[in-house]
């Protein structure tokens, strides 16, 4: 395995229940604010209204695009503006788009299928919308980017994988600039799916707490502008942060359950540390996956206490809900913003330690030392992905 050169991050953008942009999100996180509530985007037939974290999508309805792509567009526009690039100025440059989501192109429009099932010819509009809404393609089209585009569908680690793979495009010289991130919308299909798996909490999510019952779903998008040293050097742009390393590994154990010893997560952590040249004592904090499901949090706590004892960690899902394919990207953005602010928020929802968990998250706003941090994701299919991120130059 080769040691990676750091890849500069010159722009950040984020949209989720915690806020309409990154500044608003960080303010909510450090104020300890969260507002999970019963879904308003759709209705369900469940006896219990499992709370969700809906994102404030102020953009007017772009009828031709799925909500996932519209969320992605908002966060991407913020990240690009933050980087100081306009789409016009990037014309002719090799700009790629690498986006994580849970589905890149699906035929699962519920209304369409329900009508068909009932023996009615449904309107084709929803299918056309799906075919025109591939997230990476939608962003490339909107901004006129002509480099590679990739929509990663690695379930809940997609956002983390997209940032790691986007960074490799810069290192390999494929691209001058990469828009990397993740986006996912809330919908009935995923809501019913997670409910059927009996891993949703009917009260606000409690990551790593003794009484955790499961996750709350969320939605949103997180975007990073990754920029080559050549391009950055030409305009003397300070980096807001760095992607230092990326590791990923499959448990090869079970479709929905993590490996009980977290073997895949351990390998992903080892790779992220090794390729970034970091040792555990250089890690300021870990932004954990921390979904609030009994299994996930147990495995993660065990692995963290094993591999990174004494390193403070937290889950930000108490503020955002589990935004699935967007989660890894949103959390990478938060991680970089926390490194910038040299502090991390409290792990909201955690109050009672679980004797089964050897490590517990931070309960209050914590000042952190060190210039590097990790953000980790675990996913269905046994995927584990970890980003090593570094503080910027400002």
């Amino acid at each position, binding site marked *: 395995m080769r040691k990676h050169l750091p890849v500069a991050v010159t722009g950040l953008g984020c949209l989720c229940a915690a806020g309409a942009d990154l500044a608003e999100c960080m303010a909510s996180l450090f104020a300890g604010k969260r507002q999970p509530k019963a879904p308003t985007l759709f209705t369900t037939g469940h006896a219990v209204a499992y709370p969700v974290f809906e994102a404030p999508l102020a953009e007017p309805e772009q009828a031709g695009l799925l909500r996932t792509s519209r969320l992605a567009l908002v966060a991407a526009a913020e990240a690009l503006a933050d980087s100081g690039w306009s789409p016009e100025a990037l014309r002719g440059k090799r700009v790629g788009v690498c986006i994580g989501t849970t589905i890149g192109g699906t035929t699962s429009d519920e209304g369409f299928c329900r009508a068909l099932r009932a023996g009615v010819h449904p309107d084709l509009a929803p299918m056309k919308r799906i075919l025109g809404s591939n997230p990476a393609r939608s962003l490339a089209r909107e901004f006129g980017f002509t480099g590679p585009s990739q929509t990663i569908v690695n379930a809940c680690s997609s956002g983390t994988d997209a940032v790691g793979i986007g960074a490799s495009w810069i290192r390999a010289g494929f691209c001058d600039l990469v828009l990397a991130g993740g986006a996912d919308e809330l919908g009935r299909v995923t809501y019913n799916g997670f409910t059927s798996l009996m891993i949703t909490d009917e009260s606000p999510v409690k990551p790593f707490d003794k009484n955790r019952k499961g996750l709350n779903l969320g939605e949103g998008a997180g975007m990073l502008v990754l920029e080559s040293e050549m391009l950055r050097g030409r305009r003397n742009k300070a980096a807001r942060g760095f992607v230092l390393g990326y590791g990923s590994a499959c448990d090869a154990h079970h479709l*929905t359950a993590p490996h009980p010893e977290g073997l895949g997560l351990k390998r992903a952590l080892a790779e992220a540390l090794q390729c970034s040249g970091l040792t555990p004592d250089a890690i300021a904090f870990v932004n954990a996956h921390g979904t609030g499901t009994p299994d996930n949090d147990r495995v993660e706590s065990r692995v963290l206490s094993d591999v990174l004892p004494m390193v403070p960690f937290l889950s930000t899902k108490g503020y955002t809900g589990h935004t699935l394919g967007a989660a890894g990207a949103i959390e990478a953005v938060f991680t970089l913003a926390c490194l910038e602010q040299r502090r991390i928020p409290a792990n909201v929802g955690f109050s009672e330690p679980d004797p089964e968990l050897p490590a517990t998250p931070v309960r209050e706003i914590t000042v952190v030392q060190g210039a590097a941090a990790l953000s980790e994701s675990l996913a269905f299919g046994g995927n584990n992905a970890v980003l090593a991120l570094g503080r910027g130059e400002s």
Partner: protein
Amino acid sequence: MTTKDKLKHILIEELNLEDITAEDIGDEEPLFGEGLGLDSLDAVELVVLVQRHFGIEIKDMEEGRAALQSIATLAAFIDGRRTA
């Protein structure tokens, strides 16, 4: 058909246990792990199957864990709810 027999057929049919027959499943045999070899995903599927075929809801996995030990415990749970 008794609840136990019905359950065995549902198990084979819905969980695609094509390689065994109802006679192969012992009433007391553990459904998970070493016994029948089912796993956590089968457990939540069984919760849905019990509701679909018997109209009986298993609220959460705390309730589920006790009921889903074996065919015998699950049948007792279902029959108990029906007469209650």
